[in-house]
């Protein structure tokens, strides 16, 4: 635990130690009771029977889940690349010297941050056909992820560029570089390095949001879980399948989060990288 935490209480004496141990035991008992209730209910409703887990042996089921995983990763990968590109473009627009470009970019960023991602996806998938444009579920998911996360990433990039000390751009201008050169050779390389942890955290959000594709029947993991879980010939193993899918999703997100934490620690250790105050990114959907 970091310094500000330890500052909140004294080094425990004998009585405080006893009290803390008691509180710890109570906490563990409550957690154990919760886990026990869940396991009891799982067992009582037959979710732990061999019959409910038989599906895991079938090749078709395994392939279907693998297919869901591939679809999730596909949407994540294309969404991430497009969002990064859009974010960079919008950030450049917001940092531009042209007033109209600045205000257009600001409006686009504010708009897509205010509209819920689900509504964006619904707009593309259910809305567009009524003016004669059919959008596939995949395209709707990727477009939604791109627009929302692009707008958020634009703010991250912009904050990164603005956090580079002024002396850097002044020195670059003094060397005779033009604005594009200052941006490309001096500001962006430093900004991206310092913002890398924040960017990766936003990619975790994007990965989590790809699960929203479930709501517009994009065949990602959760959709496969519902599909397999409502299959009567398998015994409708909804909860067992959902448990497996949950483990896959959480593992993927944890891996990406771990990458973000590792990057942040590395950034903080490296004196060559300017440390921007780690921005809390609660802009989570």
């Amino acid at each position, binding site marked *: 635990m970091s310094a500000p935490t330890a500052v909140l209480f004294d080094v425990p004496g004998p009585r405080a130690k006893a009290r803390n141990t008691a509180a710890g035991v109570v906490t563990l008992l409550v957690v154990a009771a919760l886990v026990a209730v869940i396991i009891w209910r799982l067992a009582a409703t037959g979710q732990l029977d061999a019959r409910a887990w038989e599906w895991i042996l079938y090749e078709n089921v395994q392939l279907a889940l693998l297919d869901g995983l591939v679809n999730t990763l596909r949407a994540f990968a294309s969404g991430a690349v497009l969002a990064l590109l859009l974010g960079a473009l919008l950030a450049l627009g917001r940092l531009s010297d042209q007033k109209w470009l600045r205000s257009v970019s600001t409006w686009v960023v504010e708009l897509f941050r205010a509209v819920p991602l689900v509504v964006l996806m619904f707009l593309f998938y259910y809305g567009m056909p009524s003016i004669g444009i059919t959008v596939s579920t995949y395209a709707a998911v990727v477009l939604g992820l791109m627009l929302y996360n692009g707008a958020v990433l634009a703010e991250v990039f912009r904050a990164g560029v603005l956090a580079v000390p002024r002396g850097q751009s002044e020195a670059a201008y003094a060397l005779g570089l033009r604005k594009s050169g200052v941006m490309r050779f001096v500001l962006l390389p430093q900004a991206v390095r310092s913002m890398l942890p924040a960017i990766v955290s936003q990619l975790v959000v994007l990965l989590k949001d790809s699960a929203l594709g479930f*709501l517009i029947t994009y065949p990602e993991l959760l959709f496969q879980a519902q599909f397999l879980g409502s299959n009567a010939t398998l015994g409708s193993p909804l909860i067992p399948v959902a448990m497996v899918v949950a483990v896959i999703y959480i593992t993927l997100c944890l891996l990406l989060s771990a990458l973000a934490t590792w990057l942040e620690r590395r950034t903080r250790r490296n004196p060559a990288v300017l440390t921007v105050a780690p921005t809390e990114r609660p802009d989570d959907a």
Partner: protein
Amino acid sequence: MDVLFGNLSEFLTRFGGTIGLFVLSAIASLILGVVLAAMRVSPVPAMRAVGTGYVTLLRNTPLTLVLFFFALGFTKLFFYLPFFLLAVIGLSLYTAAFVCEVVRGGISTVSAGQAEAARALGLGFTQTLSLIVLPQAVRSVMPPLTSVQIALLKNTTVAAGFSVFEAGGFYRAVNEQGGSTLVALLWVALGFIILVIPLTVLQRRLEKRWSVAR
């Protein structure tokens, strides 16, 4: 315009549902989030571990998955609850993890001298936290906390995917009567922008008024 005014009562009822869902989940998530934050800075290692585990788990779980469980799994495992309540529980549990992180961040912005002075006066952990540190942390916590709650407001639409009780489900009602889905969804989007704007304005104002140089 026809799409909106032809279905105005429907539209308003659904946005009422959204706001109800938002307010209840906001209150519940704030309470749970502050409790979790207190656990994460407490002198009891088991509490710290439980708090950390909860936050790590929930922050790395898609909200869709959380609501998936509450919408489809909960009734199978436990007992029947109306979906509105299940959605409130799911949204609160999910948002509480983010509230906790924001509050914890706020606690660390209060200068160490404050807590040290409190301890010197003989206050215990609970008193130091609730009487000295948290009231001061509120200032720096308010803007990011509003962001979390704005995200919660937008997240209520995820619940719409599982039910039809609130704003996100408006397009289906319009569609059943042969209206344009696109226009209906655009109205929903506009409705959310209108709901988000006052919160953003409030956030900016709080930020300006309460930001203090420490």
